């Protein structure tokens, strides 16, 4: 069971997408785990053959518990592999089954965590339908054998939710649990990270004009948003200023070798997640935009992948077009910086000695004083502003 956030202690395995004997490659989604952040797709980090699934469906296990045994392509004897890198899990050949070490998991019968018994069974089709419509399964009454939730049950619930009399609540994500997770992360950040804050006003008229020209010739599928340019500019700047890209862990800063931008995504009804857009500095703006659309859609549907939770090396947050001009971000630990974009406004601006109307955005940086100082932060922020003057080169 991978750690999907500093505050996570356990997760519930709700779906296996592989079975014993299946061949997998690095990055394949092999299971779905339910956490405070919603359902997370778990990716495997080794190539090989699934030897044995070690955790039954609907079982809650602590972080670090091996979920499956996989025979890797290089070694003969099977090794135990957790489907994520951060928690240390034995990679050595499996002598004593790791399950024995898991406190809540007796070897047999299949381990059941407290509370898991109460969880209703659900058919895969019903789960998919619920996810597609953002239905919270805890609100669905099962009519199948032993209270199992059927496709029809989910359909009925969807009808109730969309009925006019229902209250405003229609997401599969548990927003209360998400709020608890946000609170834990932000409290830790405020407790541990000595933030400093900088702000910089940047003329983004060139970006707007370039987007207008570029999008005019494109069908809606291929159109770009200014948010894609913002993320690309931060990613390029982060590559040049490594003190803002990485993790502060165990009393020291570890710069990251890649730039994975955490994209802050608002969830309807009051939630927030910042999953990773991988290698944002190395992909084209078109590719970045396509991946951002996919990421926003999946996040809002409650389908984030495990690597997207654990990988962000720096976060970008944007208030969009209807917010306010300035936001002061709180760093998401163990990251060391967050860049905020306010609403774009039209302001009088001096160019070549003449005043004219320009589109201006306030960009802020909150950074970790244990790692960098305002001087470096100012250069980093200025670099982002400079990059945004030449959108065609992003």
């Amino acid at each position, binding site marked *: 069971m991978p750690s999907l956030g500093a505050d996570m202690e356990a997760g519930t395995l709700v779906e296996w997408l592989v079975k014993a004997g299946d061949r997998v490659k690095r990055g394949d989604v092999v299971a779905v785990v339910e956490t405070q952040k919603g359902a997370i797709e778990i990716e495997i980090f080794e190539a090989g053959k699934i030897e044995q699934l070690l955790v039954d469906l609907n079982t809650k296990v602590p972080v670090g518990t091996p979920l499956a045994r996989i025979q890797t392509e290089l070694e003969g004897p099977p090794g135990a592999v957790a489907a994520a890198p951060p928690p240390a899990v034995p990679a050595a050949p499996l002598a004593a089954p790791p399950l024995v070490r898991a406190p809540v998991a007796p070897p047999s019968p299949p381990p059941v965590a407290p509370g898991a018994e109460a969880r209703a069974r659900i058919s895969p089709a019903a789960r998919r339908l619920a996810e597609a419509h953002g239905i919270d399964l805890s609100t669905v009454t099962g009519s199948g054998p032993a209270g199992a939730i059927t496709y029809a049950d989910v359909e009925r619930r969807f009808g109730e939710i*969309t009925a006019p009399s229902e209250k405003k609540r229609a997401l599969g994500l548990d927003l209360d649990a998400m709020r608890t997770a946000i609170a834990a992360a932000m409290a830790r950040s405020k407790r541990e990270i000595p933030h400093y804050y900088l702000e910089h006003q940047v003329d983004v008229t060139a970006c707007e004009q370039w987007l207008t020209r570029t999008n005019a010739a494109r069908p*809606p599928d291929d159109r770009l948003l200014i948010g894609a340019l913002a993320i690309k500019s931060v990613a390029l700047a982060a590559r040049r200023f490594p003190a803002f890209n990485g993790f502060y862990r165990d009393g020291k800063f570890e710069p990251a070798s890649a730039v994975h931008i955490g994209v802050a995504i608002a969830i*309807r009804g009051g939630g927030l997640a910042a999953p990773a857009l991988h290698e944002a500095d190395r992909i084209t703006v078109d590719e970045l935009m396509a991946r951002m659309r996919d990421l926003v859609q999946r996040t809002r549907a409650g389908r984030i992948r495990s690597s997207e939770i654990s990988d962000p090396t720096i976060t970008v947050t944007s208030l969009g077009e209807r917010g306010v001009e300035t936001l002061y971000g709180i760093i998401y630990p163990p990251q060391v910086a967050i860049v905020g974009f306010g609403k774009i406004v039209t302001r009088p601006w001096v160019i070549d000695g003449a005043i004219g109307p320009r589109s201006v955005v306030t960009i802020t940086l909150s950074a970790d004083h244990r790692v960098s100082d305002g001087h470096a932060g100012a250069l980093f922020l200025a670099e982002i502003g400079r990059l945004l003057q030449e959108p065609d080169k992003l």
Partner: protein
Amino acid sequence: MNDIDIRKVVQEELNNIAPEVDMASVDPAADLRETLDIDSMDFLNFVTAIHHRLGVEIPEIDYPKLVTLDGAVAYIAAHLGSSKN
């Protein structure tokens, strides 16, 4: 396709973005971005969905004409069939 059908499609697509909203109770003259709390990504997804379903390609420059339910229906009705797609 008449205005009633178009309105139904528009409401369905907006409901995909804002599933908790009862579209029947939305003021057809109100700004959808405010009423439904939709952002630029949501609006782009809405425009994309309309393009896929009805073949009406809405250029960015026309976005302001679609910020209300009535405006969106009128715009689509006027461009249905005359679009290149």
